[in-house]
């Protein structure tokens, strides 16, 4: 037997041996593996994708960078031509002025209460309604679902005036106004303007901003859950609602977090409903603090438009700051939510 072809067996210790094979040199192997058209194509495609993603990420992130940068600039930086992204004399005056003069924390508290309850209500109600549409066949369910889509299609400015009127003197089926005419009560309805009730009521009935989308998302998600799961629960004697609360809800936590994130942050920055339901005299909300603070008024009117733009942007930054924190914690749920749901058409 030729010793060159046979593997060399070396005894290293009592329980260990080493086998040496004749192998092609490493360099040649690597060359054969990587220096071909297939790999080249793959690498190019990979680089192209990476470049594209980085480019689009830049488009998304750059406004935030520039806003953050400009929020630290002092007013002299805006006059200076050489200053572009990095402030020469960084200052916190803008932040201080907005927080103190525009009563940031008060607005924050009000908006937080409003958005939190709206978000929770919308998440839960859309979950509920979506489940009803996904798993139960009943007469008119298709028409009803079309109506859900319909509520999403109606531009909200269509309903602006009538929403305002509705919640100005809120009553159901004209009961209050009837009582008013009879003389039992003095007002034709509940005055709900400048309170959080209009938005809470809308949230509790699945009619608030883009709730049609949430119902759709939840419905698609539940359609992906196999029916056998519930059937086995029914067989074990669990009722429909018990099954929903003990089995379905825990399964859909990721999707619910996604919907909650959407609902909360869309309510947080919503201007339409807050303009309709809250007047100037009403509680201060975050959407109302976008204005030049009193203490910066002189400076901003004296210097360029850039400065007032920067002040506006800083207001925006302060407003979305809590959302950024929320997003950092919640973004993995958004991604997970889609990975598990497998929404189908």
């Amino acid at each position, binding site marked *: 037997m030729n010793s060159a072809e046979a593997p060399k067996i070396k005894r290293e210790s009592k329980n260990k041996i080493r086998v040496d094979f004749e192998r092609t040199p490493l360099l040649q192997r690597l060359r054969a593996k990587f220096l071909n058209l297939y790999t080249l194509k793959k690498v190019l495609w990979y680089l192209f*994708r990476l470049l594209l*993603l980085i480019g*689009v*990420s830049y*488009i*998304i992130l*750059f*406004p935030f960078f*520039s*806003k953050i940068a400009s929020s630290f600039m002092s007013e002299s930086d805006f006059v200076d*031509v050489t200053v*572009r992204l990095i402030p020469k004399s960084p200052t916190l005056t803008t932040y201080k002025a907005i927080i103190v003069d525009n009563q940031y924390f008060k607005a924050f508290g009000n908006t937080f209460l409003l958005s939190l309850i709206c978000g929770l209500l919308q998440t839960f*109600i859309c979950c*509920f*309604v979506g*489940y*009803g*549409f996904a798993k*139960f*066949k*009943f007469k008119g369910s298709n028409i*009803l679902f079309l109506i*859900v889509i319909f*509520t999403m*299609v109606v*531009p909200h*400015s*269509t309903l*602006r*005036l*009538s929403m305002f*009127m*509705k919640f100005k003197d809120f009553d159901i*089926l004209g009961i209050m106004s009837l009582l008013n005419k009879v003389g039992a009560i003095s007002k*034709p309805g509940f005055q709900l303007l400048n309170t959080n009730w209009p938005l809470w009521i809308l949230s*509790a*009935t*699945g009619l608030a901003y883009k709730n049609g989308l949430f119902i759709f998302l939840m419905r698609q998600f539940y359609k992906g859950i196999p029916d056998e799961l519930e059937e086995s629960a029914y067989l074990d004697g669990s009722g*429909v*609602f018990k099954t929903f609360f003990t089995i379905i809800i825990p399964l859909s936590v990721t999707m619910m977090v996604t919907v909650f994130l*959407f609902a909360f*942050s*869309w309510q947080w*920055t*919503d*201007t*339409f409903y807050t303009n309709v339901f809250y007047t100037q005299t009403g509680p201060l909300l975050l959407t109302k603090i976008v204005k030049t603070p009193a203490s910066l008024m002189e400076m901003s009117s004296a210097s*360029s438009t*850039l400065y007032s*733009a*920067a002040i506006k942007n800083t207001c*925006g930054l302060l407003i*979305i700051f809590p959302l950024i924190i929320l*997003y950092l914690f919640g973004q993995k749920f*958004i991604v997970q939510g*889609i990975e598990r*749901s497998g*929404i*189908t*058409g």
Partner: protein
Amino acid sequence: MNKVLNVFKGSASGKPRSASLEKKKARSGWIFVLPFIIGFILIYLPVIFDSIRFSFNEIRILTGGGYELDFVGFQNYRDALFVDTGFTQALVSGLKQLVIDIPAIVLFSLFIAIILNQKIFGRAAFRAIFFIPVILTTGLIGQIDANNAMLEYMNNGAIDTGVEAEASATNQILNAMDLKGLFETMAIGQGLLEYVVQAVNSIFDIVNRCGVQMLIFLSGLQSISPAIYESCQIDGASGWETFWKVTLPMVSPMILVNAVYTVIDAFTSSSNKVMNYIDTVYNQPNGNVLSSAMSWMYFLLVILIIAAVAGLLSLFVFYQRRD
């Protein structure tokens, strides 16, 4: 005797025979969607009805609260169409914008979703970044960004003359010219050229509005069974072929959903030109009923367009047969 028998009968069969499972399920279905039904009947329908009523009336707000209506027929609609100069203009330009936006948004979000679905370095981070606009660039922030001197200044590096807007406009045109040159040498039709130029100019806007669509596409892509791709690979199909023969048909229902969603989103977003115009009309004296009339006409147009888009796309939608 009879009575006794009855009692006996009653105890034997217990309560009246329970409804069939199907009926029971239908009933629980109604209970699940009940919150929405209540809201729709008690709040939404009256509001819709009021809105239609207002659009046919002249409204006077009374000082003691409440209002008075004077029926004027189609006067508001006529005013909106023929007297008001801005409305039809806004409508036409809004529609033009829509024609540009919808294909761009749908295609872009599909493309990005496909890329984000593949294995790539830092995929989680990229996904997180791409969903930022959904959460953060909506409503108020969108409005602040809509005319933001700061962003234009930093993006374009205009000279500090106090006319940043003008400078940035020229800059944009310059960029477009470069692109135009590129395309003209490629000898592609004029229409496509203008389309691409417009789309590139509004890339920031498009990226910002892609979030939800991307989400829907991604989940659609996730639901395609890997077994199909595996068998494609074994049969020797290239990535390109796999895309056209497998991925695209499988996500085509998502394309329909997203196109409709994009139309809805584009029409009802507050950055929409027509919506802006209607809002300004609303704030004019006596403009509130006029704006109601305008938005109802607008709504009818939206419905028509959605029906057209949905009808057109559903011709190409492929539904996988299950089981």
